[in-house]
C-alpha cells in the first residue's frame, strides 16, 4: 500500500461524509430561504435529513427490481464524480461520469410503466442534451486557459479563471439552473415539490428507501456542480465561497420569480444563450 492510496482513501471518505452533510444542509438552507422569499416560516434547516431518515424507514416498495439498481447507480456516479473532482482528475472524464449518473436516472424513469415517468425521462434527456454541451464547452475553455484538462491544474493557475472565462461562467449559471432543477428549467422533475404536469416526473414511481437514495444522490450532484463553479476562483477559496453563495442565492431568486417553462424554450435558452455565450468566450481565447 503506497501513501498515495491512503491519502486518496482519506479524501474519498471525507468527501462522502462532507458531501452528505453539506448537501443536506444546503438543501435545508435552500428550502428555508425559498420559504422566506415566499413569506413563509419554512421548515427547520435539518429537515432534509429528517426526510431522508423517514424515507429510509419506510417499506421498500418497488415497481420493478431494476429501479433499485438505477437509483444506486445514480447515487454511486454522483458521489464518484464529486470525489474525482476533489481529487483533481481529468475534467472530461469527470463530466462523463456525472453524465452516467443522469443516464441512470433516465433509465430509472424509463424502467417503469408510468407515462408520467416516461415523458419525464424524455424531457430529462433533453435537459441533459441542453446542459452537457455547455459543460463541455466550459471545460474546453478551461483547457485553453490552463493548458491542461485536469481539475488539479486549475488552482495552480496564476489568475482566477473567471477573468478569462466570464461568459462561460454566465453560461454555466444556466446549465446549473438546469441541473439543480430550478424554475424555469424544472421541466422533467422538480427538486422539492410535486410537479404539476407530470406529477413528480422521473421520481413519480420511486418510493421509500429508493427515493431516499435519489434524494441523497441529488445532494451530491448539487455539491458537484457548486464545486465545479468554485473552480472559477480556485486559488482563493474565500472568494470562491462568496461566488458560490451569491450564485446559490441567485438561482433561488430566479426560481422564485419565474414560472416553469416548456422544454423547447429550455433548449433554445441553453443552446442559443448558453452555448452561444460559451462559444464566443472560447473563440475569443483562440484568437
Amino acid at each position, binding site marked *: 500500500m503506497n501513501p498515495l492510496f491512503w491519502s486518496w482513501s482519506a479524501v474519498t471518505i471525507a468527501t462522502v461524509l462532507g458531501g452528505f452533510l453539506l448537501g443536506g444542509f444546503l438543501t435545508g438552507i435552500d428550502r428555508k430561504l425559498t420559504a422566506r422569499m*415566499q*413569506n413563509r416560516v419554512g421548515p427547520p434547516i435539518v429537515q432534509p435529513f429528517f426526510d431522508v431518515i423517514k424515507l429510509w424507514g419506510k417499506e421498500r416498495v418497488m415497481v420493478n427490481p431494476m429501479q433499485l439498481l438505477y437509483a444506486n447507480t445514480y447515487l454511486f456516479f454522483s458521489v464518484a464524480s464529486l470525489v474525482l473532482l476533489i481529487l483533481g482528475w481529468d475534467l472530461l472524464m469527470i463530466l462523463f461520469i456525472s453524465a452516467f449518473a443522469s443516464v441512470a436516472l433516465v433509465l430509472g424513469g424509463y424502467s417503469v410503466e408510468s*407515462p408520467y415517468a416516461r*415523458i419525464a425521462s424524455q424531457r430529462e434527456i433533453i435537459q441533459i442534451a441542453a446542459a452537457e454541451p455547455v459543460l463541455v464547452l466550459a471545460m474546453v475553455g478551461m483547457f485553453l486557459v490552463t493548458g491542461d484538462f485536469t481539475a488539479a491544474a486549475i488552482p495552480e493557475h496564476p489568475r482566477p479563471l473567471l477573468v478569462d472565462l466570464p461568459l462561460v461562467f454566465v453560461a454555466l449559471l444556466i446549465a446549473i439552473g438546469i441541473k439543480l432543477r430550478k424554475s424555469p428549467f424544472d*421541466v422533467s422533475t*422538480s427538486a422539492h415539490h410535486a410537479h404539476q404536469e407530470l406529477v413528480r416526473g422521473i421520481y413519480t414511481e420511486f418510493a421509500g428507501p429508493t427515493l431516499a437514495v435519489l434524494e441523497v444522490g441529488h445532494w451530491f450532484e448539487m455539491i458537484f456542480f457548486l464545486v465545479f463553479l468554485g473552480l472559477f476562483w480556485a486559488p482563493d477559496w474565500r472568494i470562491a465561497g462568496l461566488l458560490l453563495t451569491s450564485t446559490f442565492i441567485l438561482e433561488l431568486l430566479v426560481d422564485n420569480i419565474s*414560472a416553469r*417553462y416548456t422544454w423547447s424554450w429550455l433548449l433554445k435558452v441553453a443552446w442559443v444563450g448558453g452555448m452561444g455565450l460559451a462559444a464566443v468566450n472560447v473563440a475569443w481565447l483562440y484568437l
Partner: protein
Amino acid sequence: MRQRTVIPFGPQHPVFPEPLQLKLHLEEERVIEAIPVLGYVHRGLEKLAEQKDFVQNVFLIERLCGICSFMHALCYCQGIESLIGLQVPDRARFLRTIWAELARLHSHHLWLGLLADALGFESLFMQVFRNREIIMDVIEATTGGRMIFCSCLIGGVRRDIPNDLLKETIARLDQAEKLLDQIAPVILAEYTVKERTANLGIVTKEQARKLGAVGPVARASGIAMDMRTLGYAAYGDLDFAPIVEEAGDCYARIVVRVKEMYQSFDLIKQAAKRMPKGEHALPIKRLLPDGETVVRVEQPRGELMYYIRANGSKKLERVRVRTPTYANIPPLLHMLTGAQLANVAAVAVLSIDPCISCVER
C-alpha cells in the same frame, strides 16, 4: 403510424383539487383526443333534496360544492322565495351581495393560486394564498364558517353584519386589495406566464356560443353574458358592467378573472356604502312552496341554474342543478384537442376552473 400513449390525467393529480379524470390520447406530447370520465363524486344530491324538507335543503344544497357554496344557497333560496312569493328585506339583499362577492373573491384567488402552481410558479402560488387567507378571515368573521357560509336563509340571511364589523371588513379588504396590486401585474405581465398562456386553447366567439360556454370562459371570448345583470340580490342597485375580453385564449381568461377580482372589491365597497338599515330576515312560518321555477345566478365559474318544482307540501318534487362547469366541459374538450401535454394543466384546469363536485352533484 405514430405511437399513441393514453395518459389517465387524474382522478388524483396534483393540479386537480377534485377528482376528474381525463383520458388523454397523446401522440408524442400532443393531445389528439380527450375523454372525460365522470362519476367519482356523484352523490345523488338531487334525489336527496327530494327527501328532506325545503328548509333543510338550504344546508344540503350549500354542501353541493365547497368553493361556491354560498351561490348555491343563494340561488336555491331565491327560487323558493319566488315560489312562496316572498320579498326579501333590503338589508338582506345587500348582505347577500357582499357574501356572494366574497365567495367570488376567494374562489378566484384559489383559481389564481392553482394557475400559478400549475405553471410551476410556486412563489406566486404562495402569495396568492396568503391574500386568500385575508378573504377567508373576513368570511369567518362575518359568517362563522370559512368555506360553508351557512348564512343564506329562505327569507333573508341568518346573521347580520353589524356596522362596526362591516367597517373592519372593508379595512381588511382594502389590505387584501393592496396585496393583490403586488401580484396582479406579475400574473398579467410576467414573461413566462404570458408566453405559456397566450394563444393557447383558443375558443372563438362563435365556438363559445355553439359549445355553450358560460361565465369567464364565455366573457373571455367576447360574449358579454353575466347573470348579475339580471339584477338579483342587490346587483340591480349597484354599478358594474360585465368584463369582456376578445381574444378567447387562456390569457384572456386570466385577464377576465383578475379584473373580476377588482370588480368584486369594488362591488363590496359599493354595497357597504349603500347598506340599508332594517331587518335582515323575514319569518316563513306556514308558507309552503308551490309550482315550478327556474332561477339563475352568476357563480365565480359562470351561470348557475336551478330548476325547482314543488307541490305545496314540505318536500320538493324535483330539484335540478346545472352548474357552470357542466356547461364548460364541451369548451374544455375543444381546447384540449391539439394542446401540448405541458399545457393541459394550465389550459384544462385553469382556464375553465373546473368544479367536479358541482358537475356530478
